[in-house]
C-alpha cells in the first residue's frame, strides 16, 4: 500500500459526510441515550454502551483489514509474490495459541517479539530526544528582549522565568530522587518546591483536560439544539 493509498483510506474514514435527516435523528437518539446516564444508570444507556463497544471493536477490525491485511494479501503476496512476508504474519497468528491447551506457550513468541522490538526502539530512538530535553533545560538565565523597541536589552521577566524553569525542573527531579534519604533543609526544601511545581503542572493539565471535555459537551449540545432541533442559527 502506498502512502497515498493509506491517506485515501484514512480520509475516507475521517471526513464526515453531510448527514441526512435520518442520520441526524439516529445520532440525536444515540446522544440522548448516553446523556441519560446523567440522570442514572438505565437500560437505554446500557444498550447504547454495548452498541458503542461493538461498533468501535468492529470498526477497528475493518480499518486494520482495509489498511494492512487486504493490501498485504492482494498486493504484497498475491501480485508481487513476496511470500517471505507470510512469516511475520504467521508469527502474529501465534498469539491465538494462548487459548489452546498445551500450546499456550507459543503465544509468547509474538509477545516476546513485540516487547523486544519496543525495548529496542526505546534504546535506539529515545536517548536523542531525552538528551535534547536535558540540554534545553540548561538555558541561559540572562535573557534579552527578542524583538520590539527594547530588542537586545535586559529582559527581567524572561530572566526570572528562565530561573524559575530551571529550578522547577531540577526540584521536580529531586522530588523523584529516592536514593538519598530526605534529611536536612536542602533536600526537604528542594523536594517541597518540586512537589509545588508538579502540582502547578498537574493543575494546568487538569484545566486543559476539563476544557477539552467541555468543548465536546458544547459540540453535542450544539448538535442537539442546532442540527437536530434547529433552535440555533
Amino acid at each position, binding site marked *: 500500500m502506498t502512502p497515498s493509498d493509506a491517506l485515501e483510506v484514512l480520509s475516507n474514514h475521517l471526513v464526515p459526510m453531510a448527514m441526512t435527516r435520518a442520520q441526524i435523528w439516529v*445520532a440525536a437518539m444515540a446522544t440522548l441515550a448516553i446523556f441519560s446516564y446523567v440522570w442514572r444508570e438505565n437500560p437505554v444507556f446500557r444498550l447504547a454502551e454495548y452498541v458503542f463497544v461493538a461498533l468501535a471493536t468492529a470498526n477497528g*477490525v475493518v480499518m486494520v483489514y482495509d489498511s494492512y491485511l487486504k493490501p498485504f494479501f492482494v498486493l504484497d503476496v498475491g501480485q508481487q509474490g513476496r511470500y517471505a*512476508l507470510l512469516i511475520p504474519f504467521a508469527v502474529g497468528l501465534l498469539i491465538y495459541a494462548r487459548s489452546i491447551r498445551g500450546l499456550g506457550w507459543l503465544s509468547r513468541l509474538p509477545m516476546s517479539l*513485540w516487547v523486544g522490538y519496543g*525495548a529496542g526502539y526505546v534504546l535506539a530512538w529515545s*536517548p536523542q530526544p531525552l538528551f535534547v530535553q536535558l540540554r534545553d533545560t540548561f538555558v541561559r538565565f540572562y535573557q534579552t528582549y527578542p524583538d520590539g523597541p527594547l530588542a537586545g536589552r535586559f529582559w527581567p521577566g524572561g530572566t526570572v522565568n528562565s530561573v524559575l524553569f530551571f529550578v522547577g525542573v531540577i526540584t*521536580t527531579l529531586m522530588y*523523584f530522587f529516592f536514593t538519598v534519604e530526605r534529611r536536612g533543609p536542602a533536600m526537604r526544601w528542594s523536594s517541597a518546591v518540586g512537589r509545588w511545581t508538579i502540582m502547578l503542572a498537574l493543575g494546568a493539565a487538569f484545566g486543559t483536560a476539563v476544557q477539552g*471535555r467541555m468543548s465536546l459537551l458544547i459540540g453535542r449540545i450544539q448538535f442537539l439544539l442546532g442540527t437536530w432541533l434547529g433552535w440555533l442559527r
Partner: protein
Amino acid sequence: MTREIPATITVLAVLVVVFSRYFSVGTALDLTRVTDHWLMLTYAASVLVGVLNLTRLHLDRLRRGKDTWFYDLVLLGVMYGYIALGLVETNAGTTFRWVYNAVLVPLDSTMYSLLAFYIASASFRAFRVRSFEAALMMVAAALVMLGSVPLGDALSPFFPAARAWLMRVAQTAGFRGIQIGAGLGGLATAFRIFLGIERAHLRA
C-alpha cells in the same frame, strides 16, 4: 524451551532495532523500514484478539443465563454484523459510513463529553482545599480555564497572562522533570529486558 526461545527472540529483536539505528550497514539495508513492516504485519494478524475475547466473555454470560442476555446478544450481533458489512463493502462503503457517522461518531464524542460531568464531581472532591498543594493545583486549574475563555479576558488581562505563564513555565518545568525521569526509567527498563532480567512478558 518454552521460555528460552521467546527470551532469545526478545534479545534478537532488541539487537535488530539497535543495529538498524546505530550501524551504517543496518541503515544501508534500510532495516528499520523492513522490520517496521514486519512488525505491523504481526500486529495486523492479532487484530481478532479483542473480538475473540469479547465473544468468549459474552457467550459465557449467555450460557450462564445472566440477566444481561439481551445486551450480550445485541453486542455480538452488532459487532459481527458491522465487521461483515465492512468486509463486504470496505470502510468507504455507503452503509458502513452511514452507521459510522450516525451512530459511532455521536456515541464516541458523547461518551467522552460525559466525562465533563465526572471531572466536575471529581474536582469537587479533589479540590477541597485541605493542603497547600491542593490549593496550588486548584488555583492553577482555575487560572488556566479562566484564561482560555472570553469571560476571563473580559474580567482582567491578568487571566490570559497567568494562563500563558502557567502553560509556558510551570507546566513545561513540571512535565519536563517528569519526562526526564520517565525517559531514564524507560531506558533502564529496556536494558533490563535486553539483559533478560525483566521477564514478565514470558509468564503470559
